[in-house]
């Protein structure tokens, strides 16, 4: 194991073990809290919402991020570096601040609605925030930089002579895109999609601030059991279930990467 791995293990493992211990250590040592959690409607509803939001946010981010990555791949190196800074710009701002900024942009009398009202000369109040749309906007804003990087790496790894060969053989740009670019970028797409999906499973602030009542995700439920009900066995069980789900997605990815290497 490398030193970096050792440090990560030393930092992550003790609290994780503590959470596992808390999850089985309610009034007595048992798996009751897991059984109660899995049976409860609250958990099942929230789990479903978590998968739907994480899945749709990931796919949406992939579609938008792919376009960005494609554009970046076609730029000369120097210009690409400059444009990369713009892609990474959202990382420089706290997610909390971004969420409040989005409420100003997306609100009923926010920038978008005011602009539309002015263009169409009538009062327009599209519901863009405190609902699923707001959550997805916030999530895609957060995820796009994370998907652009692996996809861009895949695109840059494509040997440019393949493009030349394809075009010499008479392939039109659309055909080159579908038969060369897309299949050859799949490794990056696949790896990026899976990692942003796993990352979005644990989102907490975005659904809490930009979502509506039905956009609560598992992390919000952990917070609820942890701070409001003070039922730490349940809060820990949910965390461990969430951790297990994330592991179930990420472990195959690691194995696949190792095999490829």
């Amino acid at each position: 194991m490398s030193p970096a791995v050792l440090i990560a293990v030393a930092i992550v493992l003790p609290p994780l073990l503590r959470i596992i211990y808390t999850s089985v250590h309610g009034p007595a040592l048992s798996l009751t809290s897991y059984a109660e959690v899995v049976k409860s409607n609250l958990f099942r509803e929230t789990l479903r919402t978590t998968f739907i939001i994480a899945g749709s946010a990931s796919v949406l981010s992939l579609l938008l991020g792919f376009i960005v990555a494609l554009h970046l791949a076609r730029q000369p190196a120097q210009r690409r570096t400059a444009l990369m800074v713009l892609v990474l710009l959202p990382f420089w701002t706290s997610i909390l601040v971004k969420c409040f900024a989005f409420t100003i942009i997306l609100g009923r009398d926010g920038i978008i609605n005011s602009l539309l009202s002015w263009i169409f000369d009538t009062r327009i109040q599209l519901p863009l925030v405190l609902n699923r749309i707001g959550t997805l906007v916030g999530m895609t804003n957060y995820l796009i930089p994370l998907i652009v990087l692996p996809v861009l790496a895949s695109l840059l790894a494509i040997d440019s002579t393949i493009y030349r060969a394809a075009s010499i053989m008479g392939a039109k740009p659309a055909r080159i895109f579908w038969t060369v670019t897309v299949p050859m970028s799949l490794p990056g797409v696949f790896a990026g999609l899976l990692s942003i999906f796993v990352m979005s499973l644990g989102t907490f602030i975005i659904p809490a601030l930009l979502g509506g009542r039905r956009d609560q995700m598992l992390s919000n439920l952990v917070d609820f059991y942890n701070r409001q009900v003070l039922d730490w066995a349940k809060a820990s069980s949910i965390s461990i279930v969430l951790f297990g789900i994330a592991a179930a997605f990420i472990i195959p990815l690691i194995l696949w990467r190792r095999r490829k290497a």
Partner: protein
Amino acid sequence: MNNAVSKVSRRSFLGGAASALAAPMVIRASRAAPNSNSLTFTGYGGSLQEIQIKTVMNPFTEETGIKVNIIPAPDLARVKAQLLTGNVELDVFEGQSALTASGSKQGFWEKLDLSMFDLEDMAVKPTSDAVPYLLFAGGIAWDPKRFGPGKHPANFSEYFDLVKFPGRRTFSNHPDATLEMALLADGVSPKDIYPLDLDRAFKALDRVKPSVAAWVNTTTQAVSLAQTGEVDFTYVAASNRIKATNEPGGGVPLAFSFEQNVLGSETLTVLKGAPNKQNAIKFIAYFLRPDVQARLMTALGLVPISKKAVPMLPAETRKWQPDLKNPQSVFIDAAYWADHLDAVSVRFKEWILS
């Protein structure tokens, strides 16, 4: 020698290892000297904390020489964690009566010697471990520029009347106060509210659910949603936050109805095993002194617990005081919520998601 080693059983090894691991926490907990010159208090942050520092903490330190450290967020989870690890750093906890009553049920607080306090002067009496220091009134707020007289709900049955007052509303993300409101709206007489008829309360809430734009976590959010026009009417847990919108720098001024309110008290408690217990009790007693109460409530715009402090308030502040004898209003029953908060919170959360 060999024999001695073999006698170290797995159990005693684990015990030893555990105490070695726990040692830093224990050592840290005993760090504070018994006669220290400080105490630690949980603060909400924001404007409330700033006012508390100016009107209570600073003069207290000047008078007694005891320094008050403030750490963020009055959160029972933090209290539970400190008690569980034996690493108690907090002395005085502040929270709404329902919250501290629930902590009391779990044995989080020290029992207090009530002879320390002038009980005669207190509008609401302390329990064995929680001392109220102010009263607040929750109620309906709106933007008077958008909704003139008669165009907005002023009591809870009107707040629940979507036909007469259509529009987007906020509700608290917590069941306490919200279910009381629902029952009042449904025509239950204020004196018959407790024990809450949960089924009836949820049925009443079903009616307004489609109009609820936000289930708010904080009063700040409830106020700002109404100020930006994101919602039309809002339930605000404390009237003083609406008073603040009418002061310079408060943004869009909102109006607040005192026709019907949910009244509650904010309480102070001392953590079990608090490192500076004596200072903590002195601090709580200081909080209740009529002159301190008058100073704090003048700045805060809330209702003092000390009866003697009431006539000391300026007229402008008194305009924003709820009528505690209003027969339409209901006082939150902390004892009820101490027993039911957990179960009802889960039901409420499930109901919100469905």
